């Protein structure tokens, strides 16, 4: 099943950018602040997609509740979407199945796709970052981004991934989060503010998992020193 959207992914894997050519009346739904540029005849409306209930559920998963709707009016229109962090972007075609996305990875989706943050069996909540997931379902296009490059892995039996590097995975895989003591930095390093719990996720079964090659936590710990201090303002 092919996409109904006419799109192109460029600048991969370092600064993945999505360009979509919308037909008249066609729409794309994107996360806040993702728009880099667009034709002047594309309208931008922000709202709570899917009604208040859906948005509240998504809000629990950590993504903002607001979704931007871009519609090409009076003719075709181009939209260029670029997320905040340097990293990759990929397209996934939903064919009635589900795609699990890590918090912050969602960029945009086409019509006939639903995104939610809560469903039966939602699990994996640990202290700190852990694994906070969104579920994309329906028949349509989903675009997701990463911090760093994305590597696609076909899991056949077991595969272990540090939770800070998980971007997305097909729901045909089962997953279990636990602490791998050898990787934990808790209690060892005084200046560690983010991450370091040593959390890993073991995937089992058959399916694809997309992992990113960088973790936001070390970046946050490093850039922390360059932040202005409250008394310096």
């Amino acid at each position, binding site marked *: 099943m092919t996409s109904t959207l006419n799109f192109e992914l460029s600048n991969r894997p370092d600064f993945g950018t999505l360009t979509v050519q919308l037909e008249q009346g066609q729409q794309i739904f994107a996360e806040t602040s993702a728009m*880099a*540029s667009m034709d002047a005849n594309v309208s931008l409306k922000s709202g709570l997609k899917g009604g208040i209930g859906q948005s509240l559920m998504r809000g629990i998963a950590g993504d903002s509740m607001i979704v931007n709707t871009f519609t090409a009016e009076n003719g075709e229109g181009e939209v*260029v979407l*670029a997320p905040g*962090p*340097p990293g990759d972007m990929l397209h996934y075609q939903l064919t009635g199945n589900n795609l699990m996305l890590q918090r912050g990875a969602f960029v945009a989706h086409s019509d006939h796709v639903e995104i939610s943050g809560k469903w039966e069996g939602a699990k994996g909540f640990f202290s700190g970052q852990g694994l906070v997931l969104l579920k994309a379902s329906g028949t349509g296009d989903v675009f997701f981004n990463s911090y760093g490059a994305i590597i696609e892995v076909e899991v056949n039996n077991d595969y272990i991934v540090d939770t800070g590097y998980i971007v997305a995975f097909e729901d045909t895989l089962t997953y279990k989060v636990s602490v791998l003591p050898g990787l934990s930095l808790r209690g060892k390093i005084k200046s560690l503010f983010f991450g370091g719990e040593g959390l890993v996720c073991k995937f089992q079964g058959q399916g694809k998992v997309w992992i990113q090659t960088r973790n936001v936590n070390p970046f946050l710990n490093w*850039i922390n020193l360059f932040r202005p201090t409250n008394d310096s303002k």
Partner: protein
Amino acid sequence: MASMSSSINIATRWNGGVFKALAKRFFANESFFINEFTAANDGELVLTQTFPGDIECFELTGNTMYLQPGAFLACEPGISLGLGWAGIASYVGREGLFRLKVSGTGKVWFGGYGGIFEKEVEADYVVDTGHLIAYDPTIGIKMGLAGGLFSSFFSGEGLVTRVKGPGKIYLQSRSLDGLAAWTNSHL
């Protein structure tokens, strides 16, 4: 400068007179001292920018281009750098009051955060402020709301730059404000 052969000398000079240079320093965020690299013998010079991203080069043949502050990297001696008034609208959009005007004959190197892509604009085009790095002088710049009043603020887009062609524009595929906002969301 990242690295260079030892046969290259660096001389630092004020760019175009003290007063003009001071103005540039305070408003355009360009350091007003320019480093001039001269090779006594053949030598290699490696220049890089602060943020990761593409570096592009265009060759001017007597024409002019406008660059956003911070995008300028280097130029050949036949190029003159000047200050152009970008308008109050530009300041509101957080780009600063001035833009760098490069003109003359020779190569100009500029860099962006992310990938750089060029676009021939014919009529109207909308660019999120922070993504526009260079443009032809024939391009008209205007600030505007991204959507309706509600949408403009909640969309995260806020004010955008509306460009009017015909002319060429250069965009970068990431923005510093976008990176700062994303980082802040985790802190």
